[in-house]
């Protein structure tokens, strides 16, 4: 009987222990996603970044992800489990993971953490984000040239600075080329919900919008725009496949180079806590190919804006900028500071309605 137990125990160790044993010297990289990997938006792009790590380092690394993690009480457990299971660096890719990341990082000083879009750092916690608003400045100008109703529909996730910044950058660029145009915003309080996103797009089109743009993660609004013969911009990823006739361009988040660089730093032992806010100049933000429905002159204008942003000649928040009440926030000839950008909690002139706060 004893022998039998011994055999069983040996078998169990052989089956379950083997996997652990040969994963020892690889660098383990963990990802916590707020949405499903196939949202074709935000999370999809982070997962592309994860694949870039695998492509770059091959057998040197092992990557893991946990998808659709709620930003509530579950987040800390998931991050902790990744830390406990021997991951060397963990990327938490949504703003709601900030405090859970900081809490877990305190208990695992030897694990590196990278939190996207937050502002709290520690010795083993870096933050990183993209200057998505630069892309908003490009699509805002395109929308201003192409709208006929002069009403643009904007679907927002949460009224946090990042999303408000996108709305304002879009509106400033929109009205620079078309002072008559205005933006209507619908807030959904979710990052990913195709049903609600589609409903929001319908509502905005019913209210006279002829172009839809979104700061949520599913391609549903594009599909609604296509059904109604309207135009739309994709989110985070090239979404042209979902609605080729409606899709004008998308703002693409490209996390791959950053992720590769950070994992390399872990492998080399040179990783340090940093705050990265990358824009078009470093390729973290890029534009998807412009659709054939974008007229040549407008395409040329958009490419010019891109070039100016990359060269540092154009800032999406260059004065004069007024808030909705007409008060001057940034004077002509000045640009908004990063501090102001990061804490933005007001709408600029040209956005309809009031910011929920």
């Amino acid at each position, binding site marked *: 009987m004893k022998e039998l137990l011994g055999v069983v125990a040996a078998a169990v160790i052989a089956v379950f222990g083997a996997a652990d044993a040969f994963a020892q010297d690889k660098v383990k990289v*963990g990802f916590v996603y707020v949405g499903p990997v196939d949202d074709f938006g935000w999370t999809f792009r982070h997962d592309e970044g994860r694949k870039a790590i695998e492509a770059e380092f091959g057998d040197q690394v092992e990557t*893991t992800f*946990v*998808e659709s993690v709620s930003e509530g009480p579950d987040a800390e457990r998931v991050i902790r489990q990744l830390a406990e299971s021997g991951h060397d660096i963990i990327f938490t890719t949504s703003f709601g993971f900030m405090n859970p990341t900081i809490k877990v990082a305190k208990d695992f000083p030897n694990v590196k953490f990278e939190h996207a879009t937050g502002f709290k750092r520690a010795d083993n916690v870096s933050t990183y984000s993209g200057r998505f608003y630069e892309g908003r400045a490009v699509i805002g100008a395109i929308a201003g040239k192409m709208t006929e109703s002069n009403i643009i529909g904007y679907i927002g996730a949460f009224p946090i*600075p990042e999303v408000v910044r996108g709305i304002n950058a879009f509106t400033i660029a929109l009205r620079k080329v078309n002072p008559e145009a205005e933006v209507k915003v619908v807030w959904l309080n979710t990052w990913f919900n195709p049903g609600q996103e589609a409903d929001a797009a319908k509502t905005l089109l019913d209210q006279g919008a002829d172009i839809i743009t979104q700061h949520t993660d599913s391609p549903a609004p594009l599909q609604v725009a296509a059904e109604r013969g309207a135009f739309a911009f994709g989110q985070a990823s090239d979404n042209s496949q979902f609605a080729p006739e409606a899709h004008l361009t998308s703002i693409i988040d490209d996390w791959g180079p950053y992720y590769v660089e950070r994992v390399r730093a872990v492998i080399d032992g040179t990783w340090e806590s940093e705050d990265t806010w990358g824009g078009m100049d470093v390729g973290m933000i890029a534009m998807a190919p412009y659709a054939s429905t974008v007229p040549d002159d407008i395409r040329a204008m958009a490419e010019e804006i891109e070039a100016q942003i990359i060269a540092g000649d154009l800032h999406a928040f260059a004065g004069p900028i007024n808030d909705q009440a007409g008060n001057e926030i940034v004077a002509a000839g000045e640009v908004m500071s990063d501090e102001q950008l990061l804490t933005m909690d007001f709408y600029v002139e040209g956005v309809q309605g009031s910011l*929920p706060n």
Partner: protein
Amino acid sequence: MIRLVPRQEVAPAMVYLSPVIALAATVLFGLILFAILGFPPLDPLFNFFVKPLLGPSGITNLLLKATPLILIAIGLSMGFRANVWNIGAEGQYTIGAVFAGGLALAFYDIDTPLLLPGMIVFGILGGMAWAAIPAFLRTRFNTSELLTSLMLVYVATQVLLYLVHGPWKDPDGFAFPETRLFHDAATLPRLWSGTRLNLGWPLALIAVFAAWIVMGRSLIGFQIRVSGAAPTAARFAGFSERRVIWLTLMIGGGLAGLSGMIEVSGTIGQLVPIISPGYGFTAIIVAFLGRLNPIGILFAGLLMALSFLGGEMVQIENGLPRSVGGLFQGMLLFFLLASDVLMNYRIVRVRTKHAQVATS
């Protein structure tokens, strides 16, 4: 042709055995599923059911996750026994969290040991207040509590969002929609340092025990059961329907509110836009999985919590998609319902000719 014929007698042991049979069938079909997907089937199964319990924080993670499910399900089960269909525990949970969190923020600068008990009371009161609306509408206007309690979930969510985006937003939080982090005086103490398990778990155990006493051994428990099983008899016996409705909704709302308090104080440590991954709804499943019986709910809550943890673990260890966790939950419920049907009905094969005779 197959027919279901009600059994004359149901074997008493089957009532307890059927969840076990359902679990066994889930494991079996899980093995087959993993084999078809091309995994050595034991490995993901081990990772799903056993691995989450190992390691330094395994068991405590499970108990922490099960706490709100059990607490809410205990409250709901009393109502369900009495045919009071409160399906809005998610909203009562949210308002309980808001009440307790509001107190923590109001006394942000004051370090007093009275704050935590106060938050517990406020959490319970918040949940009760939210459940009082369907109770009032039902007893005064005979409005279905099924609808009103559910719709109030969405109202509660908006209340929370308004507060964290507006008046309660952390002044130093870069305009992010979160309140300040609660101080230690407003944080439920942990049972063991180094783990996340807090005082909420013993509170859940107390609720299980109290419900077991009340439902099994008290007059009011008897009234609740009779009101559900035989409303006419309850009326003849002079039991007040109004009283049972109020009582069960207050218990359900109070325990849901308490869970909300436990989560924001013990687990999250602040109010944020999302404070529940659907605990109030999952608890309905837990209540029925546990046969509306307090001890059953204890085990059902642990099993349901394990299915969430296991779902994460197979993502981490095997790279399986998140839907595997949902698939296991779905199989479990499917097999439970199936074994319930077979427990209460016999399958009889009838020849078509007979069937025609029977129907004509």
